[in-house]
């Protein structure tokens, strides 16, 4: 009895019809379709500004809605400086927390601290904003910024007169906001380091710190780098909290104690009052730049973190 056995054939052609599969697959395409639409719609909104300014947009410091002259340099500067400083501040704490959380023992305390750090991510950004503006900013001005500018004012980055809203406080608020991203992912990568490596190191007589510093952290290096880049993506795109504390001034201050601007805060602040064609389009252009940069940063970070978890599984 020669009966054909179609089940051995692979591929869609041999699959029995499955309406459920078709329907769910079509529905699940919503996410990629929306993503593509975001890029296309924002890109087309930016077209007038792209045509008018071209690449000169990135090197111009002008921001003159009356004469229709716009440039992104101050905002790019502010975004890069605040994000960089935020990472510098958050990295040691984030990795310290991750090492602490990845250790064995005392599960209650570890769970409590882990929950505490995760809750940082749950607090709405506008709450960080109002807290930064009314609590942190006055305190920072009296206890940090003013003393810095009077004693170390000759150093350009601490030159005064110090103001309440400035690059420094924006960086500090951002550092707090990226901390949960940094520590949660770093903890996972550190946990994923094979315990055999740790045990081998301890068996050779290494102390806990020598094991952590010379064996565990180097093994988790790429993943921690990925976590850092993911945190960078969060910091670059953070809008409301930064808008409330950075001072919103179209300027490129060398001093950290002076107000500045970021890409996201310029959009948040000015978009609803932007009139004409070129003004709103320039703001959308800022948004497009911000979005493409964060997209690139996120994809790199995801690939790094994924490659780590895949290695760990093997």
């Amino acid at each position, binding site marked *: 009895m020669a009966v054909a056995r179609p089940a051995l054939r692979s591929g869609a052609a041999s699959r029995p019809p499955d309406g459920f599969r078709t329907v769910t697959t079509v529905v*699940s395409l919503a*996410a990629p379709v929306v993503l593509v639409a975001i890029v296309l719609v924002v890109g087309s909104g930016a077209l007038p500004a792209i045509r008018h300014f071209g690449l000169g947009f990135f090197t111009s410091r002008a921001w003159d809605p009356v004469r229709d002259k716009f440039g992104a340099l101050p905002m790019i500067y502010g975004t890069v400086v605040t994000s960089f400083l935020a990472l510098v501040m958050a990295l040691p704490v984030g990795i310290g927390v991750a090492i*602490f959380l990845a250790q064995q023992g005392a599960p209650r305390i570890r769970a409590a601290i882990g929950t505490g750090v995760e809750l940082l991510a749950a607090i709405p950004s506008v709450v960080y904003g109002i807290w930064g503006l009314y609590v942190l900013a006055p305190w920072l001005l009296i206890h940090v910024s003013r003393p810095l500018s009077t004693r170390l004012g000759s150093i350009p980055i601490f030159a005064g007169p110090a103001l309440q809203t400035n690059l420094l406080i924006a960086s500090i608020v951002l550092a707090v906001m990226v901390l949960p991203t940094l520590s949660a992912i770093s903890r996972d990568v550190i946990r994923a380091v094979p315990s055999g490596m740790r045990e081998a190191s301890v068996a050779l007589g290494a102390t806990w710190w020598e094991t952590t510093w010379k064996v565990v952290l180097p093994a988790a290096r790429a993943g921690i780098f990925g976590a850092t880049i993911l945190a960078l993506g969060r910091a670059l*795109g953070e*809008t409301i909290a930064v808008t409330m504390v950075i001072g919103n001034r179209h300027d490129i201050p060398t001093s950290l104690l002076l107000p500045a601007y970021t890409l*996201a805060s310029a959009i948040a602040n000015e978009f609803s009052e932007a009139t004409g064609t070129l003004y709103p389009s320039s703001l959308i252009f800022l948004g497009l730049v*911000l979005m493409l940069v964060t997209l690139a940063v*996120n994809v790199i970070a995801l690939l790094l973190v994924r490659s780590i978890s895949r290695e760990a599984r093997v």
Partner: protein
Amino acid sequence: MTRNWRRQLSNQVARLLVYLMAAIALVPLSLVLIYTVVSGLPALTHLEFFTNVERPVGIPGAGVAHAFVGTIVMVGLASLMSIPLGIISGIQLVEYGTGRVGDAVRLACDVMVGIPSIAIGLFIYALLVAPLHHFSGLSGAVALAVLMLPVVVRTTESAVALVPGALREAGLAVGLPRWRVALQLVLPAAVPGVVTGALLAVARAAGETAPLLFTAFGNRFMIFDPTKAMPALPLIVFHDALTPYPDLVRTAWGAALVLIILTLLVNVASRVALRRQISLAAKL
């Protein structure tokens, strides 16, 4: 001997530093919580805060009832749009998501979570607000739905994936079609995890300001019609905090406290639901 002593010392110093970092990490959380409670309580102790709408500066009895309504309407509409879509996409990822489509959906979701929320506001502005020439609660809801979708998809996927394969096989073995296995056997077993994901997405949406700035825009009046500009709690915090009037700033702190209470409640609830999911999965 001295070398060992030095190694022990640096070990202890490093251990201390790690503990110190863990302690430092809790400082900002406690400071934000303490100051928001202290500054927000005075506004919350007046019942008018929950029943009245905004008043002009200087007139007592201002409230944020309109913002409660706005947030509930917009987050509700956003949930109606994003949660069913997200749950079906999550099921698809587990049941059939091994191919190229599944990879594309996963990558799109992971990338979408990282898109700055202000860019989503711009997207919806260009898509829905500019062509219709007016701000609306509906466009705000769509912006929030775009934010929620990837969160719901990925959490549903991980919750459904936790359901043991034996349950699925048992259903298929008694001859149930795939859709009944997925919707009537697997999904009910994954409910706590799915609810967790939906709750987290709702909490995230309720606290977002940036995507609402030029979609819902805000409003000083009680509005139930989502085709008009609508107020929201985060918008009140943002606008009122930046004014020089102590009354408005107090209202802003009150609204901020309400937002924090909401998000913390949802987070605690989602943790409970997640724990139940894990124990349920262990039982099955």
